[in-house]
């Protein structure tokens, strides 16, 4: 289907769309522009960034000999790899709000590709840490992925779209444990020595990353109706004010709660990516290849578990609305914590692998469920809220690695058990999330005045901004978000009669 960049009202889309032209269906095997094409471009580039960020761990046995690394150097580099993205994700959220996800993600991907190329010329522990640090910034493309999906897919399928895009991107962390050793072997067979072959191997993820950025730039589109820059010029989308966007993001407590709880599902996932191969190698004396395969299978579960979480979120929302999304998130993430505790307790290899796989499904599904809730926290500041949540994920990874998996204070199995306990405690915060128009886990929607979706989303715009018509997109979004009431409609206050029209 061609999209004419002419009149706003005469565009035709391959997928059924709502009033904001967001797709109401998610067709995985389609690549139709702009919705599904953007989906495929974004998950592929996020996958490439994950492959690059975790390309070093499987080759560490070679790299540590070449660069004379100690265990402390390796641990620090692992922490550096996930800490860079903490602020990068928040910055990325801002960039998406202001410039659009297409430019923001293509820019970041291209700016971090040099770090991956330069991994080939690292020659000391410091340079190794630096390249891992800067490569880790590319994990901020997660935010642009989620932002892009939230901009192109309606509430009915946004959980699914976010979950599949995020999950298939995270897959890179598992796939790289298989890809990099294969590439390394291939290059060695061609004739390079060990200490040169690993360096050449890094060109593969770097090239992949560069090409995915080109794909996004040339084939992607920010919104169903066009790119930000075109829409800004034509006046259909106004260029928002950064201070206002920032203010509405940081004053929304739900964003902070989700940031912290995401640190204890996604953060835990990143930590496990870094330590699990060594855990199986040391505790159960499997060889390095086997440990690598076990480590890969943890990440590869993302193929279905994170998308499953997103789909579950959408499914629960159909029946129970936002309250269903919150309850499911709390239950699944708490169970993830329980299995983490069990993982630290079991002492036999077979049971340990089985528990790890169940644990991976729950923790990754919790990530998908989190991003079923995030698109509804704010419409104006969607980018920064997504960035804060994403950044919170990386903060969780840094915290858990520093507290439980550094030095010799705790054995790895004790660290796992304690991390599970911390997961359960921090997940309790979800009980505090409350939307006046939909309710929270324990309370129904508010029955006092000013409690419709319009009220909630319009409160982000001042009356002078509304007079200029800047709030139009948020208005359409609030109408479409009525689906978050669940099937039992009538529990929220009736829609305002005609009042929104005065703002249009």
């Amino acid at each position, binding site marked *: 289907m061609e999209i004419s960049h002419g009149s706003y009202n005469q565009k035709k889309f391959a997928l059924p769309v709502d009033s904001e032209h967001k797709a109401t269906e998610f067709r995985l095997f389609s690549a139709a522009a702009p919705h599904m094409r953007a989906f495929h471009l974004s998950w592929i580039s996020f996958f490439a960034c994950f492959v690059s960020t975790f390309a070093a761990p499987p080759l560490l046995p070679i790299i*540590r000999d*070449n660069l004379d690394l100690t265990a*402390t150097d390796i641990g620090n580099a692992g922490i550096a790899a996930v800490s860079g993205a903490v602020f990068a994700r928040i910055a990325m959220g801002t960039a998406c709000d202001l410039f659009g996800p297409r430019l923001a993600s293509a820019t970041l991907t291209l700016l971090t590709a*040099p770090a991956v190329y330069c991994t080939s010329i690292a020659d000391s522990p410091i340079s190794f840490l630096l390249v891992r640090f800067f490569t880790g910034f590319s994990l901020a493309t997660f935010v642009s992925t989620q932002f892009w999906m939230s901009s192109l897919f309606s509430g009915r399928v946004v959980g699914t779209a976010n979950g599949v895009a995020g999950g298939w991107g995270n897959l890179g962390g598992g796939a790289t444990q298989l890809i990099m050793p294969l590439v390394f072997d291939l290059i060695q067979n061609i004739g390079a020595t060990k200490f040169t072959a690993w360096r050449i191997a890094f060109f593969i993820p770097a090239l992949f990353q560069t090409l995915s950025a080109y794909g996004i730039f040339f084939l992607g589109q920010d919104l169903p109706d066009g790119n930000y*820059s075109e829409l800004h*010029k034509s006046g259909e989308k106004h260029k928002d004010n950064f201070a206002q966007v920032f203010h509405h993001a940081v004053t929304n407590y739900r964003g902070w709660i989700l940031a912290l709880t995401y640190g204890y599902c996604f953060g835990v996932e990143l930590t496990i990516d870094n330590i699990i191969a060594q855990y199986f190698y040391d505790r159960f004396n499997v060889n390095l290849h086997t440990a690598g395969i076990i480590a890969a299978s943890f990440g590869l579960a993302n193929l279905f578990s994170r998308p499953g979480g997103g789909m579950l979120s959408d499914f629960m929302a159909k029946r129970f609305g936002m309250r269903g999304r919150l309850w499911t998130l709390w239950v699944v993430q708490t169970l993830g914590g329980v299995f983490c505790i069990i993982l630290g307790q079991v002492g036999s290899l077979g049971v340990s692998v089985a528990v790890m796989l169940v644990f991976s499904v729950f923790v990754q599904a919790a990530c998908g469920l989190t991003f079923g809730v995030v698109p509804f926290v704010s419409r104006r500041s969607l980018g920064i809220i997504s960035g804060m949540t994403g950044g919170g994920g990386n903060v969780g990874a840094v915290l858990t690695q520093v507290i439980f998996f550094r030095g010799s204070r705790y054995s790895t199995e004790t660290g796992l058990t304690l991390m599970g306990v911390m997961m359960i405690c921090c997940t309790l915060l979800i009980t505090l999330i409350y939307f006046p128009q939909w309710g929270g886990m324990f309370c129904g929607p508010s029955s006092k005045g000013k409690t419709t979706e319009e009220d909630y989303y319009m409160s982000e715009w001042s009356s002078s901004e509304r007079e200029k018509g800047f709030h139009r997109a948020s208005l359409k979004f609030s109408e479409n978000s009525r689906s978050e009431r669940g099937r039992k409609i009538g529990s929220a206050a009736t829609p305002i009669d005609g009042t929104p029209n005065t703002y249009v």
Partner: protein
Amino acid sequence: MAIQYRFLLASVFVSCLVATCYGGVSFKTLQTTLAVTATHKEGVLKAGLDNITVTWALDPSAPAGADASYKTIKVKLCYAPVSQVDRGWRKTKDDLTKDKTCSHKIVAKPYIAGGAVATATWTVQRDVPTAKYFVRAYAHDAADVELAYGQTTSVDKKTNLFDIEAVTGRHVSLDIASICFSAFSVVSLFGFFFLERRKTRIAEAK
């Protein structure tokens, strides 16, 4: 489905048992009956370039008949304790199947009884990391089980150590390729910005 599941469990269980069958020889039980020396140039040895000449023979003070079952001598390059600090993958363990002290093989030769001194010259391989080393020779029997050893350093592994410097693995062509590709990425990004500006200017002009 249940039968296949049970079969899978059983085979996993059996394979775990198989792995535990091979316990290792304890290092403490080995006799020190070999006299080993290693000669090399002064200073730091370069991997891929310099040679080490190792010699080994039955120690004259060893009890008679000690070498009755010796079949093979395996000479290995071993890490000194200072190079094992904070590096768990080089840890010394008493169980020789789990011990990682001597990870680099120098040479393996059949044992010739009679007390003659055997020699071998070895070029330091290109995948040897930068560290402090000593040389140890193990005597194996016909079943490849360790029986005795000898090393060039003292029992506490502090004397007579030598340094090896690894190859960097870097090449000028790799360096140039990295820099060029990196520069190209950044330049193409600015190209994108320029293209984007042009597109919006054209759209504006319409």
